[in-house]
């Protein structure tokens, strides 16, 4: 998390944040075909080429995003791998019946979120013209509406939970060609949408974590990189809802929302400045000029590359906009980046830099002379700004249009858009925010009634809600750093069994499950052979003082290592943990201290540490570390 962000009074700013959390479900097969779920890392077996066109929505209007995507005229390439894709993913076969296992999981999660379950599910198509889905739409289903999760002393409201198919993975996006791998397509996922109830960036992150843990705690979702992604919506007073898409880690949420709030504030400041200069959406003046002849022998590498491949270089002059483009909007980014981002996406001019402007002449590749000429032919006054773009002529024309659209948006304030996380809390333009017009019903699949029997079956097996589990454990005095990983552990049930049957400190049990076993697994041990019964037996023996705590990691390691262990008792039985009498202990310690008489230690504590290290192993499990330490210190003092 960034430490360099200026302090902000988020309440005064009217900060509001809503979350859309996408979590893949742990099913064997995909949502609308029978291909197995999983990612492929081998080269594709075949590729296909498609284009996307906007269509009419159910209510008869074209969607804004749809039209924008069409402007970019992208060639879309899909990579196919045999075994992970069939003709469904190619959009050459209609969908198969919805995956019932996935639907059951989604209903269960909706119940856990206190949602009202829909009586009859309707499969909808949500248009995506970016090519990420070969059909051009995502099949999605609302399963539950109007739920809540507890947070602090209030409820964060849930708008709805949907079951939907995941999109393809983007491989590259260069110029007019975007390439996707179709392996991930149609992986079942749920989308949990909250109301904008989070009132500052820390709340946004914490609530995201709470919902994330709840989904994982169900034990029915996929884990690992890419299995969860969140879209974060942010607005401030006078701003607009802006959606930051595809945030990979909840840890990024705080910085992203923080900086987005600052960005919106900056855009509002810019709007006020524009207004104070007497410019309105009606009176905005933008003129276009062709610079190809005056820059025909420029030294600017970017522009020369474009001209050499038959392109053009043009500019737009915005009357009265002088100075605005260097106004900071995000850490390290000025208002000019808002223009550059739109041009990158919509005009496909994606080699950066893609604009030069007269507010930052020194940072451009153009010479002072060239700027003088440009200003002369555009009749650029001190109060105006010139933005230069270059590339294929069609794209340059699109770019000039986009400059106009972005300038018009600036007069309104914060444009309605989706932005992408480009790292370190910074975002860049992704696309215009789509409206409800992009939703329309799927005519390939009929509505599916959800029977009472089905709901009863799922409800009767509903697990404890993660926040209830957490609260119960907190009341037992378990620490938060144990609770958080434990509640999403698949061993959380055996944890409850152990603490209810054995006289042990729950924090110790929790630490073994969330830390010891995890670190064994990281070291490459096969920890899956440790059964629930093994853990119960282990802690039963421990609580009966058969050995001290220090023996536990050693016993588990040996159990995982040994070629043919029967059970943990087998391993425990191989060791002699018979306690050492005080006299014996004293003799062992004194012997060891005597061996150190030649050695020099700065402090007694260091000497004690050294002695401890020498005899710890032989006393492992017989004497607790704490007892051993105090016995050594006692002997040293004498």
């Amino acid at each position, binding site marked *: 998390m960034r430490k360099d962000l200026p302090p902000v009074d988020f309440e005064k700013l009217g900060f509001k944040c809503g979350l859309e959390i996408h979590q893949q479900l742990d099913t064997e097969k995909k949502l609308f075909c029978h291909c197995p779920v999983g990612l492929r890392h081998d080269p594709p077996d*075949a*590729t*296909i080429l498609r284009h996307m066109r906007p*269509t009419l929505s159910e209510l008869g209007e074209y969607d804004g995003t749809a039209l924008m995507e069409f402007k970019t005229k992208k060639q879309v390439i899909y990579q196919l791998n045999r075994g992970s894709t069939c003709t469904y993913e190619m959009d*050459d076969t209609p969908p198969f019946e919805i995956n019932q296992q996935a639907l059951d999981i989604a209903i269960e999660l909706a119940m856990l979120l206190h*949602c009202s379950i829909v*009586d009859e599910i309707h499969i909808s198509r949500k248009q995506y013209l970016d090519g990420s889905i070969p059909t051009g739409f995502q099949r999605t289903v609302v399963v539950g509406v109007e739920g809540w999760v507890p947070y602090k002393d209030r409820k964060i409201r849930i708008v709805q939970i949907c079951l939907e198919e995941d999109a393809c993975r983007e491989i590259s996006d260069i110029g007019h060609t975007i390439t996707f791998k179709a392996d991930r397509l149609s992986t079942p996922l749920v989308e949990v949408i909250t109301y904008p109830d989070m009132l500052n960036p820390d709340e946004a992150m914490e609530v995201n974590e709470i919902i994330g843990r709840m989904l994982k705690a169900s034990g029915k979702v996929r884990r690992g990189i890419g299995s969860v992604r969140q879209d974060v919506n942010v607005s401030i007073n006078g701003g607009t809802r802006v959606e930051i898409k595809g945030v990979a880690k909840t840890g990024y949420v705080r910085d992203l929302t923080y900086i987005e709030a600052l960005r919106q504030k900056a855009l509002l400041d810019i709007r006020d400045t524009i207004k104070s200069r007497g410019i309105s959406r009606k009176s905005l003046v933008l003129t276009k000029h062709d610079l190809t002849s005056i820059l025909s022998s420029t030294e600017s590498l970017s522009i020369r590359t474009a001209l050499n491949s038959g392109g053009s270089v043009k500019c737009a002059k915005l009357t009265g906009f002088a100075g605005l483009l260097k106004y900071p909007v995000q850490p390290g980014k000025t208002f000019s980046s808002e223009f550059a981002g739109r041009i990158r996406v919509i005009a496909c001019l994606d080699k950066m830099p893609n604009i030069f402007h007269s507010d930052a002449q020194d940072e451009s590749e153009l010479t002072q002379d060239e700027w003088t000429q440009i200003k002369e032919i555009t009749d650029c006054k001190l109060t105006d700004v010139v933005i230069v773009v270059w590339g294929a002529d069609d794209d340059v024309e699109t770019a000039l249009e986009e400059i106009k659209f972005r300038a018009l948006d600036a007069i309104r304030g914060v444009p309605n858009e989706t932005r992408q996380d480009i790292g370190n809390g910074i975002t860049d333009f992704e696309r215009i925010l789509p409206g409800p017009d992009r939703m329309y*019903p799927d005519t390939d699949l009929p509505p599916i*009634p959800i029977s009472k029997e089905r709901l009863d079956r799922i409800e009767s097996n509903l697990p404890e809600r993660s926040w209830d589990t957490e609260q119960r454990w907190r009341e037992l005095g378990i620490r938060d750093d144990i609770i958080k990983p434990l509640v999403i552990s698949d061993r959380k049930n055996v944890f409850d069994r152990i603490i209810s049957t054995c006289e042990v400190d729950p924090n110790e049990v929790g630490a073994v499950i969330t830390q010891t076993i995890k670190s064994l697994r990281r070291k490459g041990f096969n920890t899956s052979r440790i059964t629930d019964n093994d853990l119960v037996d282990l802690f039963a023996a421990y609580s009966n003082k058969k050995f001290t705590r220090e023996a536990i990691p050693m016993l588990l390691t040996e159990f995982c290592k040994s070629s043919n262990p029967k059970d943990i008792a087998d391993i425990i039985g191989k060791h002699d943990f018979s306690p050492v009498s005080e006299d014996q202990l004293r003799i062992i310690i004194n012997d060891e201290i005597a061996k150190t008489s030649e050695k020099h230690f700065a402090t007694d504590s260091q000497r004690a540490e050294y002695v401890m290290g020498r005899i710890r192993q032989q006393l492992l499990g017989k004497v607790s570390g704490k007892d051993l330490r105090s016995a050594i210190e006692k002997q040293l003092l004498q």
Partner: protein
Amino acid sequence: MGNDLYQGYKEPSLSKLKELGIKVWSDVEISTTKGKFVGVILPRSETADSEHLVLKMHNGYNVGIAVDSIISAKEIGYKEAHYKIPESEFPTSPDKPNVTLLGTGGTIASRLDYRTGAVIPAFTPGELYGAVPELADICNLKTEKLYGVFSENMGPEQYIATAEAVKREIENGVDGIVIGHGTDTMHHTAAILTFMVQDSPVPIILVGSQRSSDRPSSDAAFNLRCAAHAAACGNIAEVMVCMFGPTSDQYNLLHRGTRVRKMHSSYRSTFRTLGDIPVATCTPDKVTPLRDDYIRRDVNRKVRINTSFEERVAILYYYPNMHPDMVESLVDNGYRGIVIAGTGLGHVNKPLYEPLRKAVEQGVAVYMTVQTLWGYVQMNVYDTGRDLLDAGVVPAANMLPEVAYMKLCWALGQSRDLNKVREIMLTPINSEITEGEPHNGYIILQGGLPEVEEFLKKGMR
């Protein structure tokens, strides 16, 4: 009126809506035993059950609500959908060729119909221009809706009217004709139009879509642009099907109407030329012939039509253990023509010989084709075949079964004299029978083979 307020809703939903004082397009807040739902009430599909009402929530999602769970409802607004395809004047230019698009029911541009869940076509030039503006770069477009039927409901009435419309448009001087058609029986229509409309001076192109035009990935716009170009500017004045070549959006194929068949239930590239190669490849701005033996565009040629059609013709798809009564019942029911899709080189089992002989004796025209689809009937190789020949079954060479069916309907419509019918059947009009099959007329690549996998890896397919 009346029930128009409750489109598609049946009892008990209908009474409940009336009782609650809400109707289709009402923006409502509904309290149910499960919770609160807010949205616009949509029409109900007529095939859906009568226990639920459909709500479009304000974020665009649809949900179904059990009518019996509704406690109360409050109308907070009314939002009727206006189905409208952006429409504007189709721009015309005297330099551009004139094309007439005849509609039979295939969808090219469309909107959705709630009641049936079906797609309603956009069809007027203005609507088409709104949906596929690129058309204006290709031609001046005139449209005429002949029918609005699904392709499986096409029949003689539609074939004849289409042929007549084609003739009329040609005589009006158009530079090409495009026929919008559902894909399922497009090859049947292509075959019969080849027979009914001869000596056309201009291209006659059938086109449709495998992915409906209500989806962004639809092949409809590309198909239409290709077909419009082939009709407006192409030099091939034949009845052809213009559909995707590969499954990628790359180019279309122009298939001869008598050698084309739909070969996959859902692929975009479902239409294939069988036993030969296609006539040409086609993009929205270029037709590239793959062969030279096509009929050239020639404005001086006079189109002729012959819309004869006998409806009492059947295809008998032979299977092992077929009983004689299958043939007998056709004869008893007055069928005048039978096209057999026989096994292998054109065979059926022995018990059918006698009923087939009797059928021929009673004046029924019986033709043999092969259910292998590729290859010729050759009935002299085995005794079975010779016996069938002896019974009067006429081998139809390499005519596809559906094409032989269409041609027999057409031939029997012209004459009852079996010799005359035979002459019509066996005299090819446009490649329904060919002199031989080229070495590359039968290409079914088998996935999994290393060389095929290599081919798939290399390019877009």
